[in-house]
């Protein structure tokens, strides 16, 4: 029994080497133990047991110590020591608590209780040893980590303190997530992989948000997926529709090189033919005036002006290209000549007046 106590004293001596936080938690543990012992020693005394229970309930810390001492008036020696220990420094207090324990053990003559106490002390010794081992393993590890392990052990040994400690450990869990994952627990590795995966997905989703129009305001994965699905479907339908349209336009499937040329012009210029025409108008105000004058005179000049505008814009003036486009225009403009002429006449004017309405017209 005494030897056991000695070892525990050594343990407290070792404790002085540890950090302040650890010491504090150690002290807390000692106090807890003492309370436990008192509870066991005076098991028959119901009133005192209640007091002790109360002192345990509101977190252990320092306030419990005096209350405990106050709550055991029948036990003069221990109470006296406890009050002195309050005034003393931390290390000495630990020592006092040990001595106090000795006295208590001597006072209580029942062997069964001694046995219990022995078991308890033994368990505490084991805990201390395991802690030391962990410290050795980590070397000079992070303070937070050692704290966590300590708290885990505290949780294991004293169930009553779990309430306050769990809060602290949860806070630290959020702070030191990667540290905890590094400890190599299976669940942690899984959760880590899962987290990385989720981050990847959300990153891609952000890209998709940029890509898909009207997806910026939507938060939530389901809504975004909805939007993406709609967009993909609409694009696929557009491809379908456009291929149908091309099939109707070109019965012989003869998209030749001039088409290719013009197409390249358009693709660099804008998404649609309409915006292309308007853009060229807006880019060349001087040319607009010319277009105004010539356009009002006679319709046949319109394809030329159109061509010129594209040449202005693109700097690809080849004679073959011009003639081909000319032909294309003529072929295309065969039936709705009058309406087209009217539209082309009105176009420069609207271009001048409503230059700011460009996006709307494009739509």
């Amino acid at each position, binding site marked *: 029994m005494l030897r056991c106590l000695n070892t525990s004293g050594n343990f407290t001596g070792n404790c002085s080497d540890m950090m302040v936080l650890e010491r504090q938690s150690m002290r807390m543990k000692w106090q807890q133990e003492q309370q436990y012992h008192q509870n066991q020693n005076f098991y028959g005394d119901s009133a005192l047991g209640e007091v002790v229970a109360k002192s345990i309930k509101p977190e252990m810390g320092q306030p419990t110590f005096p209350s405990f001492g106050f709550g055991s008036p029948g036990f003069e020696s221990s109470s006296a020591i406890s009050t002195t220990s309050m005034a003393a420094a931390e290390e000495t207090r630990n020592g006092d608590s040990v001595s106090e324990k000795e006295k208590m053990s001597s006072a209580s003559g029942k062997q069964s209780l001694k046995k219990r106490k022995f078991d308890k002390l033994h368990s505490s010794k084991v805990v201390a040893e395991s802690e030391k081992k962990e410290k050795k393993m980590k070397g000079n590890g992070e303070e937070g980590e050692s704290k966590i392990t300590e708290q885990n052990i505290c949780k294991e040994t004293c169930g009553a303190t779990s309430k306050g400690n769990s809060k602290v450990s949860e806070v630290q869990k959020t702070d030191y997530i990667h540290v905890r994952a590094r400890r190599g627990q299976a669940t942690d590795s899984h959760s880590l992989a899962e987290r990385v995966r989720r981050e990847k997905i959300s990153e891609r989703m952000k890209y998709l948000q940029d890509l898909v129009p009207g997806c910026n305001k939507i938060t939530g994965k389901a809504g975004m*997926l909805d939007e993406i699905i709609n967009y993909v479907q609409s*694009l696929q339908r557009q491809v379908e529709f456009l291929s149908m349209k091309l099939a109707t336009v*070109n019965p012989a499937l003869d998209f030749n090189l001039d088409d290719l040329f013009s*197409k*390249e012009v358009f693709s660099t210029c804008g998404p649609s033919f309409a915006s292309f025409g308007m853009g060229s108008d807006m880019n060349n105000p001087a040319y607009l005036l010319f277009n105004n004058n010539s356009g009002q005179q006679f319709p046949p000049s319109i394809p030329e002006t159109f061509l010129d505008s594209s040449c202005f814009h693109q700097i690809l003036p080849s004679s073959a290209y011009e003639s081909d486009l000319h032909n294309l225009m003529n072929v295309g403009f065969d039936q709705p000549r009058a309406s087209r002429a009217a*539209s082309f006449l009105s176009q420069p004017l*609207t271009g001048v007046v409503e230059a700011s309405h460009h996006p709307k017209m494009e739509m």
Partner: protein
Amino acid sequence: MCDNSLNRMRNTSSVMKREFLRKWMKGLGKCRMMKNNNMSFLERKKAIKLSADLAMASTRTPATRWSRAVIAQAASSQDDGYNKILINHIVGSSPKGKIFSTTSPSSSGLCRSRRILKRRHMVRRVVKKIVSPMVMAKRLVKKRTRILKSLLPGGESMEDDVVLIEEALDYIQSLKAQVEVMRCLAAASHPNTNSYKFI
């Protein structure tokens, strides 16, 4: 429509567009040669769409799964000879055996059967108990993911969500380019509609 980001994207994808157009024209030329100009409207439409899809896929082939799936699908469709010739013509240098082998009917059948099983299971679960909102949200996301998978070519084989979304990104981008090119071509060869747009 005239956002800066869109403009930027247009510039970055202009190379892709040019490549796509070149291949598409090649494919269309081949179509015309093979069918000898006597095609019905539906045939023409089909040929145009197929050649456009294949051209787009072949511009993106080595990088993405959906493009390989498109080519494989075209290869395994009914009128094999014609499609294969077209694929060889458009895709060209890529190793044929590899592409064709990506279609494994057994695996697709397996997928289908698994899906059916899952659906049955889900129905039973829905009947059984009331679900929490968390589970409900997860189920919604799952359902949409399934739909997206069905929309993407070759999406059935993409188990991973990350891969699926990456593929969706690429697919949307290339579809966009394809649509723009096709629209431009349609507009160029059919200017009447444009003149109507102006009014």
